[in-house]
């Protein structure tokens, strides 16, 4: 019987909590409503994660999906902010690059 307390499911739990810690505005996980909710869901489905007796692994799959959502949104933002164009250089910056000064700068 698939259970949420198997090792892969706990690995996913750790990954979700780590993502929540990285993204949230509060530093403590105990203050994070989602972290508390995820933990309570894990506890609730400790014996089995089969809802409606439909399929095994349902809650674990959901946790994995949520982890991937959090992880890849953060990764997208990181890559984007690293490589994002910073626009044109200002006149002062360009002048300094080639060793010039602007007319009103002190000599």
């Amino acid at each position, binding site marked *: 019987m698939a259970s949420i307390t198997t090792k892969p499911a706990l690995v996913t739990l750790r990954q979700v909590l780590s993502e*929540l810690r990285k993204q949230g505005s509060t530093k403590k996980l105990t203050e994070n409503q989602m972290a508390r909710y995820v933990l309570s869901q894990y506890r609730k489905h400790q014996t089995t994660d089969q809802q*409606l007796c439909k399929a095994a692994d*349902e809650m674990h799959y959901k946790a994995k999906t949520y982890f991937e959502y959090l992880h890849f949104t953060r990764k997208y933002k990181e890559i984007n902010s690293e490589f994002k164009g910073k626009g044109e250089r200002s006149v002062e910056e360009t002048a300094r690059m080639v060793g010039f000064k602007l007319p009103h700068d002190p000599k």
Partner: protein
Amino acid sequence: MVNPINIGLKMFRSINIIQKSNILNQSINNVVKNRYYATHKRFFRRTDIVQNEKNWEVTLDHRRLKTPNGRVLTVNNEPLARAIAIEWDAQIEHIAQPTMHLTALCNTSLDNPGKLSSHDITSYLLDFIATDTLLFHSEEEELKELQEQKWVPVLEWFNKRFGLKQEISRDLMPPPVSTETRAVLARHFLSYDFPALNAMCFGIEALKSPILMLACVDRFLVPQEAVLLARLEEEYQVLRWGRVPWAHELNQAEMTARVAASLLVIQSSSERHSAAKKSQGDQST
């Protein structure tokens, strides 16, 4: 009739004027230069959720989150509301709306800006099947081998799951889609409610493949695997020509986030009934 050349000239002149005034006024130049699109600073301290009868709402400092059309954003289950609250809480300095897929999906299904019905989306998705990425196998030997190794198990799953026989194409012509396939899939798509169908459409457009999305919904693949299969040719080329983080990895991250977001919406809408029953059980214990 308006002469297009005249408009072009007018635009050109107005750009000239802007440039001149920029040289005169450095402060305006800085403002214009740094603004690419409208951004909002974070204006709230904490995010939370409230229950309103059977629906859930998201609050930003006691103000209720609303859709672009001004309706209150309500969702019909708790985990999704919590996920949206976390999504807003993750916007530390600026609110980057293009990356908030869960909010966007809920907004679209509430506001329905395209005035679509479930039948419109279904017929659009049925037309998509003939151009599914998985149905176009390459003519190049090496890539074809890779595609057969990775794609064929998913196609076999698809045929078995829906009891169909879908042909594949080896050139540019889309393969034939039988009326039976369309009927079976139409029934399947219409069994979802509108928010789920809207999310399904979003995920399919990201993956460019209805088959992969259906495999994700049935938990045959996780989003990361599905994205890898959808980008198989790109990955094959990357092995030969090298990986560029600001193109390939950015693309991969965005696609996976989109697919995972749409899956979360689909899952939460399909398990609403069981969730309602469980909360009743909780009260009695």
